[in-house]
């Protein structure tokens, strides 16, 4: 019998439907795989094996009685940012020590309603702030990929590093993730997996620990494009509990796979050809262009003139919103409390002990740019620049562009404890240079594996779409996937 954990979601779905396997067998295989691998990969911060096997048993019983949901019996990993009732939910921060919510996030509730099984909670950068998963209180995640001929540990990207590593190492069929500036697409690119950040408002943010509310979006990380389409269909919904949830029906994304891209206009923004970009990234991009051209798409050079201002604007808007969102961690209502001589001292000691270095840095920046006298110079200006960034995209779409093709990241996965990045926070921030514009404009963006670097590590291409036209992204990404093939690491763990 083939290894059950190597099946894609679509494959597992058909094996379950035909009765060839049960959810208990599939879930059991994953529980065993996690037990064997987690000490090396550190993708899970909490494994809910017993609950998983119970959910699997219940799923098999539902199937026997003829009731099957879209994800019936499929074992999933959940990013630690999602509130899961009675289960470890800490955004991988020390300040949420012991927090077990009394409620379930809308997205995970949708997954369980569709029959999915929860394997546990996945590691991530603390409060989703980071691009390497090294800011987690639970330690870094190790990328299942290694450079050819090397045993050096690499980062899986971040913030959804646990999600990406777990999917790539076959430690869950698929995973939930979130993306504020690239946190789904960059780790997907670093691990040879597929990740989509849908349009802002497509997935409910209710019950997802807030980082930067105007930028945060939930989305899946999966083994292939079809699986991403299946996952997004179940995750997305219209939700009265999130005022920014959009009142639009959720399409059947899977149906868009296999549709031709003939005649689609694919924009190539020249501003994404950044200074110092490695030749292999440029070559990957050209390869992607060639594949889409061969498939009948029309390639059009476009301009997105405000691209270079997206990252600086992001590092005002995101910390500003974070400083406000993270004000709630005060040692009173949940999580950690350090004793102090009075209430202010208690707050200050609790937050000093509970937040990690990167989180403190962003709270400080956010507090500063929102403080009296600086609001107009920083925050208001950044929000105006954001309008200009969005306008660039609107102009391109107005001119008939259906989707935009760019590299997903400026490099392949880098090493754990990279000295240059540790010395200069801005260097780490530059990882999101190609992805952050999409969050600033609220658009959908998908990262699909498209090749390998000289060291044999996976590289991804990004597709950016019009608002709520995720179907175009799935359809186009499927064409790239068909041409590029799939990418799996050789098992060393």
């Amino acid at each position, binding site marked *: 019998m083939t290894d059950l954990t190597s099946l894609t979601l679509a494959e597992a779905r058909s094996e379950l439907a035909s009765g060839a396997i049960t959810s208990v067998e599939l879930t059991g295989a994953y529980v065993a795989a996690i037990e064997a691998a987690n000490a090396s990969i550190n993708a899970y911060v909490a494994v809910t094996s017993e609950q998983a096997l119970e959910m699997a048993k219940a799923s098999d019983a539902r199937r026997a009685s003829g009731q099957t949901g879209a994800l019936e019996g499929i074992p999933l990993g959940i990013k630690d940012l999602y509130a899961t009732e009675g289960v470890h939910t800490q955004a991988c921060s020390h300040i949420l020590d012991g927090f077990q919510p009394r409620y379930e996030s809308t997205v995970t509730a949708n997954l369980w309603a569709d029959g999915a099984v929860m394997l546990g909670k996945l590691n991530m950068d603390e409060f989703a702030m980071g691009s390497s998963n090294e800011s987690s209180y639970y330690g870094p995640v190790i990328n299942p990929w290694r450079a050819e001929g090397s045993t050096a540990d690499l980062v899986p990207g971040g913030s959804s590093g646990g999600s990406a590593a777990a999917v790539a190492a076959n430690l869950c069929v698929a995973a939930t993730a979130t993306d504020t500036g690239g946190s789904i697409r960059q780790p997907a690119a670093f691990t040879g997996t597929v990740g989509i950040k849908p349009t802002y408002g497509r997935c409910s943010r209710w019950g997802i620990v807030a980082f930067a509310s105007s930028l945060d979006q939930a989305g899946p990380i999966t083994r292939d494009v079809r699986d991403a389409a299946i996952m997004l269909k179940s995750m997305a919904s219209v939700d009265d509990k999130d*005022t920014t*949830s959009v009142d639009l029906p959720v399409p059947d994304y899977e149906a868009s796979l296999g549709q031709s891209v003939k005649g689609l206009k694919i924009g190539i923004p020249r501003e994404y050809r950044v200074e110092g970009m490695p030749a292999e990234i440029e070559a990957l991009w050209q390869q992607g262009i060639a594949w889409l051209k061969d498939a009948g798409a029309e390639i059009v050079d476009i301009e997105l003139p*405000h691209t270079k*201002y997206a990252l*600086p604007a992001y590092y005002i808007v995101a910390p500003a919103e974070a400083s406000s969102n993270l004000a709630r961690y005060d040692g009173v209502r949940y999580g950690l409390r350090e004793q102090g001589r009075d209430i202010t001292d208690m707050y*200050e000691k609790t937050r*000093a002990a509970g937040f990690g270095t990167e989180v403190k*840095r962003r709270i*400080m920046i956010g507090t500063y740019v929102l403080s009296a006298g600086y609001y107009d110079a920083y925050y208001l*200006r950044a929000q105006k620049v954001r309008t200009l960034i969005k306008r660039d995209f609107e102009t391109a779409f107005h001119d008939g562009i259906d989707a935009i093709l760019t590299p997903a990241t400026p490099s392949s996965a880098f090493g754990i404890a990279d000295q240059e990045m540790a010395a200069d926070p801005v260097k780490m921030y530059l990882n999101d240079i190609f992805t952050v514009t999409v969050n600033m404009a609220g658009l959908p963006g998908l990262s699909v594996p498209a090749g390998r670097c000289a060291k044999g590590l996976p590289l991804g291409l990004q597709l950016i779409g019009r608002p709520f036209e995720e179907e175009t992204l799935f359809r186009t990404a499927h064409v790239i996937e068909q041409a590029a093939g799939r990418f799996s690491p050789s098992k060393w763990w």
Partner: protein
Amino acid sequence: MSVDLATVKRVARLARIAVTEEEAARMEDELNTILGFVEHLSEVDVDGVEPMTSVTPMAMKKRRDVVTDGSKADDIVGNAPETADNFFLVPKVME
């Protein structure tokens, strides 16, 4: 614009994060690096540009002003570090 050590300490106070002298000095450098990076925005002509308030053109949904939830005091204090009779306990704030 850049920050000095006194500003770092003032901002830390506003953010309710205790910092040691050493941390404050390190943060001064880091914050100035980041502020130097975001300084690029000053080159952009934003005259007459509306600041973004919502990425999707939508009116904020408002629910009806009725009670739809409640009687969950146990759940609400369930994760608190210190409670008594469904109240959150904090250090004394008045003499």
